[in-house]
């Protein structure tokens, strides 16, 4: 793992916003929140409210876990965080922009600043893994330095699978490819929905390490999981807060975890 840590450097230098973000104690935008929920409620049409009266602030450089029983609404909350869903009540603000006022292009641009590892990881199955990982750059009209890309692939341990097509990847490899795709734009925020859902303990530790590394570079990280062992392992390494969804609301979990 130690050798992999250094390989993250090209990511850092890709975008000058991050040149000074390496100093984790003074993340930029201090005083602002990257994602803010005010009195937010959400319910899918035809059902009652799934989430209600949620107040939440993710400060730059913070590390959060989101937990709660299956079906509590973790994925739903994450979708609210990147503009895939619009709250039925209240206000979600992403980078000081009200989601409800955003145009479709604004949403697209915001997604370049928010890297998401989806619970159901989806790729373009006709393109090899390395092109899928570079997809966020491609769609925003940027080109990839081949060396940057291979460093990133090495960082997530997928050097051998660069040319493979996504359907040929194992569950854990898909998760890591998704993480690589989520960070290639050097986003300010990383949302990971059950990033360790498909993998064994060792692999989940490895993925966690990658996320902690990103947080040390100044990125805001939110991980949805119901794996308490993972949360405990993380708390030993990083200052993480745990949010729990119960009874439609989000609460800050105490030290009992």
């Amino acid at each position, binding site marked *: 793992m130690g050798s992999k840590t250094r390989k993250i450097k090209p990511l850092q230098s890709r975008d000058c916003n991050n040149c000074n973000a390496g100093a984790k104690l003074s993340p930029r935008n201090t005083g602002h929140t990257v994602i803010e929920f005010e009195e937010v409620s959400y319910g899918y049409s035809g059902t009652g409210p799934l989430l209600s009266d949620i107040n939440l602030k993710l400060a730059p450089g913070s590390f959060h876990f989101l937990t709660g029983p299956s079906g509590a609404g973790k994925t739903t909350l994450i979708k609210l965080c990147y*503009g*895939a*869903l619009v709250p039925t009540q209240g206000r979600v603000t992403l980078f000081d922009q009200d989601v409800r006022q955003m145009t*479709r*292009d604004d949403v*697209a*641009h*915001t*997604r*370049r600043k928010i890297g*998401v590892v*989806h619970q159901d990881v*989806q*790729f*373009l*199955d*006709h*393109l090899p893994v390395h*092109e899928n990982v570079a*997809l*966020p750059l*491609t*769609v*925003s009209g940027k080109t990839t330095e081949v060396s940057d890309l291979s460093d990133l692939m090495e960082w997530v341990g997928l050097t051998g699978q660069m040319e493979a097509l996504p359907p040929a990847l194992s569950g854990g490899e898909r998760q890591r490819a998704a993480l690589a*795709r989520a960070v290639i*734009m050097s986003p300010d925020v990383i949302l990971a929905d059950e990033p360790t859902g498909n993998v064994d303990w060792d692999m989940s530790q490895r993925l966690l390490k990658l996320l902690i590394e990103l947080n040390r570079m100044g990125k805001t990280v939110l991980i949805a999981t119901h794996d308490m062992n993972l949360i405990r392992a993380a708390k030993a390494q990083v200052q993480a807060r745990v949010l729990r969804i119960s009874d439609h609301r989000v609460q800050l979990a105490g030290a009992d975890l």
Partner: protein
Amino acid sequence: MRRRFSSLVSRDTQADRVVPPTGFTARLTVFASGAMAFLAVFALALSLATGRLADQWSDALAQSATIRVSAPDGQVDQQVLTVMEVLQTTPGIKDARVLTDSEQRDLLEPWFGPDLPIETLPVPRLIEVIEEGEGYDPEGLRQRLAGEAPGAILDDHARWREPLVRAADRLRGLGVVSILLITLTMAAMITLAANAALAANAQVIHVLRLVGARDRYIAGAFVRRFTLRAFSGAAFGVIAGVLAILFLPSADVGGGFLTGLGFRGWHWILPLAIPPLAGLVAFLATRHAANTTLRELT
């Protein structure tokens, strides 16, 4: 080779790669576009040929009325004057002119040779009548002439062509309507094909949205494809259509309408407009289909 051709047309081949290739439907689109262009060439040729015919015939119509005045010696000049007065007060007549002796001699020369002593012969005088607007009422004029100048006979033999001119005009209109219908069919067909492609690639579009692609980028990948297919298909169709017209039997054999079905002079350039037009139709239809589909996604 294909990649190079498409990179000529679009700057962004990478963007086209994000949508998986579809061999069979692509060929169908090219084929249908080619067939439509082939038909459009004929509709265009028909429209232009009938247009030419209508113009020729109506020119002939406008110039072809003459009045022949033949009367016993001494009365001719008097009757010519009377006819001219009648014509001046007939609505629908722009001008009337007595042909001079030398003009009459020119007319008769093919039959009687150049030395015809026209002054001494009882040759009728000819008056050329030029219509204006809707033209005059030939029956009314005939009756007035019979009353006032019995030696004058109105000859409007070209009038029988009038219904033909109307038919030719109608055919020209039908040609234009056909081109319009072909264009709309093309738009409908491309819309169907584009919608099918968008539906088949719903998953791809979803992933692209998730990684921050703007609608214009996603739509562009589809739009470029269909524009290119429609354009290249139409280019083949136009080449085939123009060749078919070039090899129609030659126009001098028998003359007539069928052999006149072709392009004349600069009209040969017109079919060249079909492929860009097909491309434009495909561009607009695909963009509309893509924007409609994309607006429904998050």
